[in-house]
């Protein structure tokens, strides 16, 4: 395995009596795009700020390219950062903003000008060099901020919720642009977000954080499909949770609302009579019986929401409600509220939450 480019080792941060980050460990490979995903106050921005040097860890070590940078000042780290609030210098033009880091580093003017032009090309705003930040839209300002961060060729790029101040459409196009630039330059990147869709769509790996800890680190596929904890399962994506009672631990039989399903190999040492939380993603459930789906439950349709390309249906099963999505087909009318319905799923898709 290659040497990690960024290594965050046993990092802890406390503000007075409050510990906001505890025992955080993460190794990031060279050129990897890693996202910190979590709700407000989970410590994701604090970890990023410790990597940037704006906060000093109370304990632990941060290593970049084999060098311990834990106690270095932010201006000695050669790290680029994009902030949520753009943070462009209002008194400088776009070109001066992008060239700021180059000028501070003492790069000759001709070389700096060339690099600024190159950056403007990269972010597809070649004509904007003479404008001031206030003359640009939010999306343009954030692209300039990205160009400014990568112009001095930093070792590491940190993105602190760079898209959250933008409107939905710009957010999607800019995140794709950020990812494509990151891939093109091969720069190791850490991205902080509370938006799961953003994290799932652009990351190589995601660290889901909660209460100052990394709950799970994995690829978007692993995080979504194999959540390691109840928090990750609930936080990432929509989840249907059903209560079940183990009826026969040896054969993996579980009773859900007086109906029995088989979850062989998934009970992880549960005993007969134990109550379990069972979770299913809406897309893992089908309305009606389907070949290849080995488990089914009966209930009654309680809600139908037409969302255009998909129809979200809620089925009441005993005291629980299960949400599922079915594709809209113009030839078939949507299901009606009050109809009896059977849902089927593959028992392999059912998650047993611990």
């Amino acid at each position, binding site marked *: 395995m290659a040497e990690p480019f960024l290594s965050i080792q046993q990092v802890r941060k406390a503000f007075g009596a409050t510990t906001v980050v505890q025992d955080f460990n993460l190794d990031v490979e060279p050129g990897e795009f890693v996202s910190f995903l979590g709700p407000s106050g989970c410590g994701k921005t604090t970890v990023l700020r410790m990597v940037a040097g704006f906060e000093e860890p109370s304990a632990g070590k941060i290593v970049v390219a084999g060098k311990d940078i834990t106690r270095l000042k*932010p201006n000695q780290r050669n790290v680029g950062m994009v902030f949520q609030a753009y943070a*462009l210098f209002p008194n400088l033009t776009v070109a001066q903003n992008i060239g700021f880091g180059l000028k501070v580093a003492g790069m000759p003017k001709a070389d700096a000008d060339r690099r600024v032009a190159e950056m403007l090309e990269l972010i597809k705003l070649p004509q904007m060099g003479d404008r*001031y930040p206030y003359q640009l839209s939010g999306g343009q300002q954030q692209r300039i901020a990205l160009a400014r*961060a990568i112009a001095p060729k930093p070792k590491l790029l940190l993105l602190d919720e760079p898209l959250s101040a933008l409107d939905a459409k710009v957010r999607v196009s800019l995140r794709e642009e950020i990812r494509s630039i990151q891939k093109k330059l091969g720069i190791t990147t850490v991205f902080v977000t509370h938006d799961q869709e953003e994290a799932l769509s652009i990351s190589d790996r995601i660290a889901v954080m909660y209460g100052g800890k990394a709950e799970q680190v994995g690829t978007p596929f692993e995080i979504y499909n194999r959540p390691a904890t109840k928090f990750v399962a609930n936080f990432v994506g929509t989840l249907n949770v059903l209560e079940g009672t183990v009826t026969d631990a040896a054969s993996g039989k579980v009773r859900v609302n007086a109906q029995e399903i088989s979850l062989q190999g998934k009970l992880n040492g549960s005993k007969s009579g134990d109550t379990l939380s069972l979770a299913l993603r809406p897309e893992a459930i089908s309305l009606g019986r389907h070949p290849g789906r080995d488990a089914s439950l009966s209930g009654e349709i309680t809600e139908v929401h037409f969302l255009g390309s998909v129809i979200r249906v809620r089925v009441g099963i005993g005291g629980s409600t299960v949400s599922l999505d079915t594709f809209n087909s113009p030839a078939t009318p949507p299901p009606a509220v009050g109809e009896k319905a059977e849902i089927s799923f593959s028992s392999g898709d059912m998650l047993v939450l611990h």
Partner: protein
Amino acid sequence: MKQGSRFWAWLVFGVGTTYFVLPLLATFEFSLRKRRGEYSFDAYRSVFGDPNFQTTFTYSVVVAIFTILLGVLLVVPTAYWIRLRLPNLRPVIEFITLLPLVIPAIVIVFGYIRMFGSNSTLPFLATARGTDALLVIGYAVLALPYMYRAVDTGLRTIDVRTLTEAAQILGAGWTTIIARIILPNVLIAVLSGAFLSFAIVIGEFTMASLLNRPAFGPYLQNIGANSAYEPSALALISFAITWGCMSLIQILSRFAPRSANRPN
């Protein structure tokens, strides 16, 4: 109803304007009476022709410039640091900067004379240049409430913390951050403070007189005590200088660097 409220508004405006303008008009009218039986600008001619006017005015302008420089060097980094790192100390600093409004200049200057006399370890008063420096320091203290407030208000319009962090991560040190990012963005606020300082220094009497410096304030007092019409002319000239400063603040504020938060 609307007609009535407009009448009262105009009445209040009229009374206020009269209260403010009438004494000025009277002073102006009196300053034109130097020649018997007709109006003339003789009093102004006499003031502008007086070599003491020119020397004292020039002296005060130079002192004002040094006061502004000292004020900016003292206040900008302080106000910046308070906003960035010590926001809890802001009320304390505000209180300290307000003290010159409460403590009379005469008390401050007597304190200086006792502290910095020729026998003290810092004998500012032993030489003329030293006394000039002490006068500049004293004026910087007198201008502190205005300068601090102006700069602090300017800093409030920008995101000090994020801009500082953005500059830091790009490799900038503190001097670069203050000189190239913070100061240009609060320049208009600094200029407002500077012009207010200028207006204070130009007419100040107590400190200059007790430190025995040839400033414009003591000259104004001396003319007032010995002539009839020239003091009125000088009063109007002082007013014009102050108003000029205020107008410059207004004009310059139109050229303030615009930001995303303040696009127009």
